[in-house]
C-alpha cells in the first residue's frame, strides 16, 4: 500500500512570495489533515477534512493560508504571501473516520528567506 505522498519535499522562497504544497492521501482514506511542525515541537493541526469538507479550520491563519481538497482526494495548502515565521515543516496525514489513527507523509520543509 502506497503511503501519503507530498510534494515538493523542500521549498525555499523569499518572503512575500506565494507557495503551494500538494498532498495525495492513502487510497480509501476519507480524512485528510494538514499540520505545521516547528523545529523541536510536535505537529500542530492547521486544517482537517472529512471527504471534501473542511470540518476544522479553526487553527488556519486565513489571512494568508488557504487549502482545498477537490473531489475529496488530493489536497493543496497555499500560503500567500509567505512570512519569515512560516518556515517550518508542513505535514499531511490521512486516515479513516472513526479509527482516528493517522498516517503521515514525509512533509515539505519550507524555508522563507
Amino acid at each position: 500500500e502506497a503511503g501519503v505522498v507530498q510534494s515538493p519535499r523542500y521549498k525555499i522562497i523569499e518572503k512575500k512570495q506565494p507557495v503551494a504544497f500538494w498532498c495525495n492521501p492513502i487510497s480509501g482514506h476519507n480524512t485528510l489533515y494538514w499540520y505545521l511542525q516547528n523545529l523541536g515541537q510536535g505537529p500542530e493541526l492547521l486544517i482537517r477534512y472529512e471527504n471534501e469538507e473542511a470540518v476544522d479550520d479553526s487553527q488556519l491563519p486565513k489571512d494568508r493560508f488557504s487549502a482545498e481538497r477537490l473531489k475529496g482526494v488530493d489536497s493543496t495548502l497555499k500560503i500567500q504571501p509567505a512570512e519569515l515565521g512560516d518556515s517550518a515543516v508542513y505535514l499531511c496525514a490521512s486516515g479513516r473516520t472513526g479509527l482516528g489513527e493517522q498516517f503521515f507523509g514525509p512533509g515539505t520543509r519550507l524555508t522563507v528567506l
Partner: protein
Amino acid sequence: ELKVEQNPLFLSMQEEKNYTIYCNYSTTSDRLYWYRQDPGKSLESLFVLLSNGAVKQEGRLMASLDTKARLSTLHITAAVHDLSATYFCAGKHNNDMRFGAGTRLTVKP
C-alpha cells in the same frame, strides 16, 4: 481544549538500560497515540491505545494507558541504538488531535 505534556523532553540512555517516557493529558481523551520520528523523516505510528488499562508491546517498546490518571507511558526495555529518535504522544478528543512536544531519545553505547 486538550493539552498534552510529555516528559522528559530529552533523554540520553545507555544501551541495555530501561526507561519510561510519560505523557499526561488535560481532559478526557478518546484514545492515545504514540509516534516515532527520525531526524528529517515523518511520523511513524507505533501504538494506538483505546481504553483504560490498555497495554501494547512491540519489541522493546511497551505502551500503557491509565485514563483515570490521564497518563500514558512508553516503556523502553534494554535500549539499543536503533531506538534513538523523537517520540510523540498524542491525545484525541472530539476529533481534535493534540500532540505533545516530543521526547528526544538518544541511546549511547
